[in-house]
């Protein structure tokens, strides 16, 4: 008897065979084809339409962030296993010669590079808080953030890429307004995803905090009901569902770290609604097939209705 196929194997093969994705040669690294991109853009536009009432300010950030920003989020204390930093060549001719010698011998030459003081952004909203230092207006502010995220969790599962885009609606205000943002937007996102045939659930969750100490963090996060995920079955009803979105109340974590205050002078509270774009697009292909032209008419109508 042959060993059982991994749960992701069949979906991965179909996505590659039909050119939705192409392999780049490392686990969790894919090129995204035109079918993928067409669905991505339609989904993104639908998401923006769904939350147009927030009148959110649009901000976009580079895929890397200064180490000073990364430090303030405390990310490496909680998630060292997911962390990635950028290295650069800073030597002269002699050091270049050494690098080339190492390379010619077939060994890894990245050891000749130096840390650049730049970190891969692990979450789209993290660099936002760096530009909010100071005092918020009454009622707080709302933001539309689409950004590239890096998380070092190499896997052949197409639902777990190492780099992916997250589209977030973030609120910075006080405790009440942050909680309200999370609890008002999440059900609407779940309804939007249901209208695409994804049959989602909204469940309490915790982040993958690292190691022994991470158990405390995860337990506290669940006890305080800070994080919820929107999950859908991608690999059938017998396999655990996959998160495609999340709704997070950060308490005053980022407010304290970045010196953000509400209109009353208290430390700001923040919350975000995040949609994992690549995961959601792939969940749609898994659910409806590899050719969007053949997707159910009601799903196509939601994604590609003519608006305006």
């Amino acid at each position, binding site marked *: 008897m042959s060993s059982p196929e991994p749960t992701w194997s069949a979906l991965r093969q179909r996505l590659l065979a039909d050119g939705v994705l192409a392999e780049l040669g490392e686990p969790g690294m894919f090129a995204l084809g035109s079918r993928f991109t067409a669905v991505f853009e339609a989904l993104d536009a639908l998401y923006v339409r769904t939350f147009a009432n927030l009148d959110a300010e649009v901000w976009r950030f580079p895929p890397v962030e200064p180490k000073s920003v990364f430090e303030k989020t*405390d990310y490496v*204390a*909680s998630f060292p296993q997911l962390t990635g930093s950028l290295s650069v060549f800073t030597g002269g001719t002699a050091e270049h010669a050494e690098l080339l010698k190492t390379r010619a011998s077939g060994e890894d030459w990245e050891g000749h590079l130096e840390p650049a003081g730049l970190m891969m952004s692990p979450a789209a909203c993290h660099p936002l808080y760096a530009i909010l230092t100071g005092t918020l207006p009454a009622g707080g502010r709302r933001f539309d953030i689409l950004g590239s995220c890096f998380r070092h969790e190499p896997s052949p599962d197409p639902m777990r890429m190492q780099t992916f885009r997250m589209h977030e609606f973030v609120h910075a205000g006080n405790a009440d307004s942050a909680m309200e943002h999370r609890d008002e937007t999440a059900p609407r996102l779940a309804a939007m995803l249901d209208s695409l045939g994804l049959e989602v659930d909204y469940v309490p969750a915790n982040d993958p905090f690292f190691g*022994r*100490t991470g*158990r*405390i*963090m995860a*337990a*506290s*996060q669940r*006890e305080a009901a800070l994080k919820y995920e929107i999950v859908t079955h991608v690999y059938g009803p017998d396999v655990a569902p996959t998160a495609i979105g999340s709704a997070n109340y950060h308490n005053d*974590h980022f407010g304290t770290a970045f010196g953000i205050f509400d209109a009353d002078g208290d430390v700001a509270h923040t919350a975000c609604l995040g949609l994992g774009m690549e995961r959601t697009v792939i969940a749609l292909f898994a659910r409806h097939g590899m050719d969007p032209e053949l997707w159910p008419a009601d799903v196509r109508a939601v994604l590609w209705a003519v608006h305006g």
Partner: protein
Amino acid sequence: MSDNTYGDRLAIREALQQFGRLNQAVSDLSDEADLFAAGFTSHATVNVMLAIEDALGIEFPDELLNRSTFVSIDALAHAVGMSRGER
């Protein structure tokens, strides 16, 4: 039976003072006082736990790695005892 309680509590107070990021002095807190009411956070529990483990040469077992272990100096002293296999 060994009585480490006094030394344990000193080490716990020292760890809280250094890493607890509390909004009041640890010397003003009773052994029963709610640490989370004094500004303790889950982020800070991590560093406090590591400092206590370091100072006392123990390791909290996995089943104690939750919020209730960190709720007061008493609770922490009890957890230290459990980590030594006492009580």
